[in-house]
């Protein structure tokens, strides 16, 4: 800092210094302007990428929140079903609904006679129609023999086609796997008012499925919640206790230095390593169940611990020493100073660190691969020992499916994941406000 003034003094006489300043002034202003422009450009570029990313996900994902229903008349005749009047629930469950749905599809288009054409016709309706009719009959066994009208899901191909509005204007969709005949049938159904679009509740009610129209996010969402719950319950108290001890109580010596270096190192270890550890220790040695959120939670908390510890230590360090000194001056013990004053003041920072750690855990797939959480899960997990999968894994599995309707499901799952993240961050902001204290 002092050097330039010295050299200015040497080189130029005093009266010229203003002119030198004036000469370089424009240059310095320009440099500052350039710097500001670079900064603004960097922000604009990252914003543009964000908009591009979110925009493409939104455009692809939004159709997934709409589903197509079809109205069919089903005659619940006992001959096709193969059950008698007064059948038990078990018999009703095992009845032949497959033929029943086929029959009612034929009933709507009686002119269809050829085998191949019939097969194409059956393809318009989702296989979930069978389950829907079954559940209805099991709830009201007295309906046996009656004809009922039910809204059932349309097949994914028809749904994708119908949702774009291509039925009225073919130019909207250039590629479809529907045949001309199937499109003609769909038009007839549309004219009769037997097709309708609705908000996709199936997506939020069901677990995974191999039929795109029946696939839902519920199982993965529950899996993510259960896994993160375990992660939070384990990592938060351990990390905060570690941080407090290291920051407030531990003596400064070679051992604490070693521990500190190791914690910082652990934060940079690739996450798959934690997965291998989880497989070797928790599954093979402690014999915890494979694919369970409990193991996933433990593995992810190992991964997030260093992040939370480092953030918590920084937050504790940021509390002014005068607070501690004042507390001690009034006769508080070291523990009282920490729990009554330092910790509450550091809490906002600690919570932010925890949320960052958990958000990282939420998006992790690699360690879960090793412990079997990359799996096809239909049943919604209800406890931490049930088989489960998590949101990012669901995204990965759907992206890899041959059926094209899974493309929109993939984007929709990403949207759900993003909403989950926003909720988590909002909770962090709320908690931070709640804990914030002024001194």
């Amino acid at each position, binding site marked *: 800092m002092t050097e330039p003034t010295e050299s200015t003094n040497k080189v130029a006489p005093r009266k010229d210094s203003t002119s030198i300043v004036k000469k370089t002034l424009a240059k310095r202003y320009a440099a500052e302007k350039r710097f500001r422009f670079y900064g603004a450009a960097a922000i604009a570029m990252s914003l543009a990428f964000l908009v591009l990313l979110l925009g493409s996900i939104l455009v692809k994902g939004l159709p997934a929140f709409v589903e197509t229903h079809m109205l069919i008349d089903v005659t619940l005749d006992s001959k096709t079903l193969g059950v008698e009047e007064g059948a038990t629930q078990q018999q009703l469950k*095992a009845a032949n609904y497959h033929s029943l749905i086929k029959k009612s599809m034929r009933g709507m288009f009686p002119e269809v006679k050829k085998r191949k054409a019939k097969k194409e016709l059956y393809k318009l309706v989702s296989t979930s129609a069978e389950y829907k009719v079954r559940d209805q009959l099991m709830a009201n066994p007295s309906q046996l023999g009656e004809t009922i009208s039910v809204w059932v899901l349309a097949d994914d191909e028809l749904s994708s086609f119908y949702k774009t509005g291509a039925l009225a204007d073919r130019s909207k969709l250039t590629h479809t796997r529907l045949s001309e005949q199937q499109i003609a049938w769909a038009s007839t159904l549309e004219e009769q008012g037997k097709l309708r679009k609705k908000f996709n509740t199936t997506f939020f009610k069901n677990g995974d499925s191999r039929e795109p129209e029946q696939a839902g996010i519920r199982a993965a969402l529950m899996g993510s919640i259960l896994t993160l719950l375990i992660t939070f319950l384990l990592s938060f108290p351990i990390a905060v206790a570690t941080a407090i001890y290291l920051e407030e109580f531990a003596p400064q010596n070679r051992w604490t230095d070693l521990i500190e270096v190791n914690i910082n190192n652990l934060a940079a270890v690739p996450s798959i390593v934690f997965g291998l550890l989880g497989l070797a220790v928790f599954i093979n040695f402690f014999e915890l169940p494979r694919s369970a959120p409990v193991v996933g939670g433990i593995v992810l908390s190992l991964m997030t611990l260093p992040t939370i510890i480092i953030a918590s230590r920084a937050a504790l360090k940021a509390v002014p020493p005068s607070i501690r000194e004042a507390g001690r001056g009034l006769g508080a013990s070291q523990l009282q100073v920490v729990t009554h004053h330092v910790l509450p003041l550091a809490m906002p920072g600690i919570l932010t660190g925890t949320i960052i750690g958990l958000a990282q855990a939420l998006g992790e797939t690699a360690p879960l691969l090793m412990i079997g959480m990359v799996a096809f899960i239909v049943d919604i997990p209800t406890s931490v020992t049930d088989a489960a999968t998590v949101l990012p894994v669901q995204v990965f599995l759907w992206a890899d499916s*041959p059926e094209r309707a899974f493309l929109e499901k993939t984007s929709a799952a990403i949207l759900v994941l993003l909403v989950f993240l926003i909720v988590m961050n909002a909770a962090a902001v709320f908690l931070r406000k709640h804990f914030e204290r002024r001194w």
Partner: protein
Amino acid sequence: MTKRITLASSLLISLSLSAPAFARDYISIVGSSTVYPFATVVAERFGKVSNFNTPKIEATGSGGGLKLFCSGVGVDTPDITNSSRRIKYSEYSQCLENGVTNIVEVLIGFDGIAVANSIESDQYVLTTKDLYLALAKQVPNPDGSETLVENPYLTWSQINPELPANKIEVLGPPPTSGTRDAFVELAMDGGCKQIPFIKALEKQERKAVCHTMREDGAYVEAGENDNLIVQKLVANPNALGIFGFSFLEQNDDLVQSSIIDGYEAEFDTIADGDYSISRPLYFYAKAQHIGTVPGIKEYLTEFTSEQAWGEDGYLADKGMIPLDEETRESAGELARSLAPLKMTDSE
């Protein structure tokens, strides 16, 4: 507050660690990612129709699945593993060593590997020999001498004058993929063996020549995701792509199969064995778990039922090529009777 959470979580850890192996009320399935899309359909249906829970299916790859499967008996090991090849004798003896003595083998169908391009351009008519010459790292010298040279071919017409003069550009899976293994085994090896002097080579040497793909950019490793390959083919009409038959079927409005050795990849040609690039699919069930884990027997029955693996079954709708009726009957019989697999070293 912190104290209470610490207490609760330490309680939770000690609880979960002290608990014995958990009883399992669902079937655990691992194995091939090729069989995964078919097994999941059966599992889902099984869960909805039967009184049992839906089986859990992990795609670990055939080798990884068999390793887990053969690691022992007990609820912490999988009950069933899917495989896109037959179990090897080494794996079988590994199973026996770990006490897995009662394995039921079920041949379920075939999977074809398609070589396809965009529907916008002309269909390719290829032989497996053309594929070998286009994609191998080393090929016979074009001057006719019986020596091997680095692959000199840049366009298809250099290999066979009847082919278009397009640049050779083939998008396919990376070496970690089972589809790649199968493609190399069936198409590359098949084409390679048609050249007499290579066929006469030592087995190891021949394998090195036939199984090594070129790395000069003509063969592009496009990742494990077959959907991505289809999208790239649509964007680049001159390129060919290699992927599973079910992806060809789901995208038949965008891509078309090439004709290989006179046959297109179609349902019937694969089922009849005319289309040369196809492989058998299996699954292996641990009969010792029947009675411990509920539903295994019923799952076998569902999988081998005509409405699942039959010619008009729902697996065929998903792109699996069914066995012929006779094989289906005998394989189904074998599966339902839970006949244990016996293997000898020679197999």
